[in-house]
């Protein structure tokens, strides 16, 4: 799945929270075992890499994004583009150039679709 240059935000769940990534920053989305890998490309700024998601909820055309208040940055020292609400649930809008640690897959930049020695059987089955 690839949605370059598309409008809107991809909504995903990770770590119990809801996250939104601008579609324009996404180069690819693949299932990897029980979860998903989202490739952020050059269009996302200097933060190209692979992010992880527990669940993909879909794409919304638009989100009203509020900037992160200083009090949030004080207790959650992670980069983000802002906060939003979708379906009555708060959404953290990701800065594609600086994704938060909670979304990092640990796969590295070339970990999007290649086979890796540390990939278990469960992961391979999920990709079939």
């Amino acid at each position, binding site marked *: 799945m690839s949605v370059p240059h598309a409008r809107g935000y991809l909504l995903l769940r990770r*770590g*119990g*929270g809801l996250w939104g990534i601008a579609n324009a920053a996404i180069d690819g989305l693949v299932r990897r075992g029980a979860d998903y890998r989202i490739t952020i490309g050059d269009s996302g700024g200097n933060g190209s890499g692979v992010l992880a998601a527990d669940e993909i909820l879909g794409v919304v055309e638009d989100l009203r994004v*509020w900037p992160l208040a*200083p009090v949030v940055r004080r*207790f*959650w020292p992670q980069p983000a583009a802002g906060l939003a609400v979708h379906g*009555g649930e*708060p959404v953290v809008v990701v800065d594609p150039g600086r994704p938060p640690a909670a979304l990092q897959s640990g796969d590295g930049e070339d970990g999007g679709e290649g086979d890796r020695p540390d990939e278990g059987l469960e992961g391979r089955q999920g990709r079939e």
Partner: protein
Amino acid sequence: MDTVPVEENGKSRREGTHLLVRAGEYACALPLASVRRVVRALTVHPLPGATAELEGLAEFGGEPLPVLNLGRLVHAPAGPNPTYPVTVVVWVGPAEAREMLGLAADSALEVVHVPAGSVVAGDGGFLLGEAPVGGEVVRVLNLEALGRAT
């Protein structure tokens, strides 16, 4: 909730200045002018990587609302499990750049009058000091300081 009516039956009654809430073993006084609403505890979604004080994010009035755990903010020893926990929606930060914030507390108690002169021994920041209220020493909080960037 910006003001509290004063009785007009001839009795002199001091106007309430603070909302008293329970957070663990502590009672905390929040300036009424900063309190927007008290609601039943909102559903909070965690933010991975947040410090213990930040419970997570909730939705309030169609907007995202960060929710802080008041007991952890004031380092209150844990009390009994609250029967009716609340989220106190407050304004924090300076008036020209105030932000809406939720404070998770065990219960909302009452509106009280806290004379400015009765507040002692604060840290000059979020914990303005302590004051005697109804036979109990309460923590008087400065919500404007809470919203300042550090």
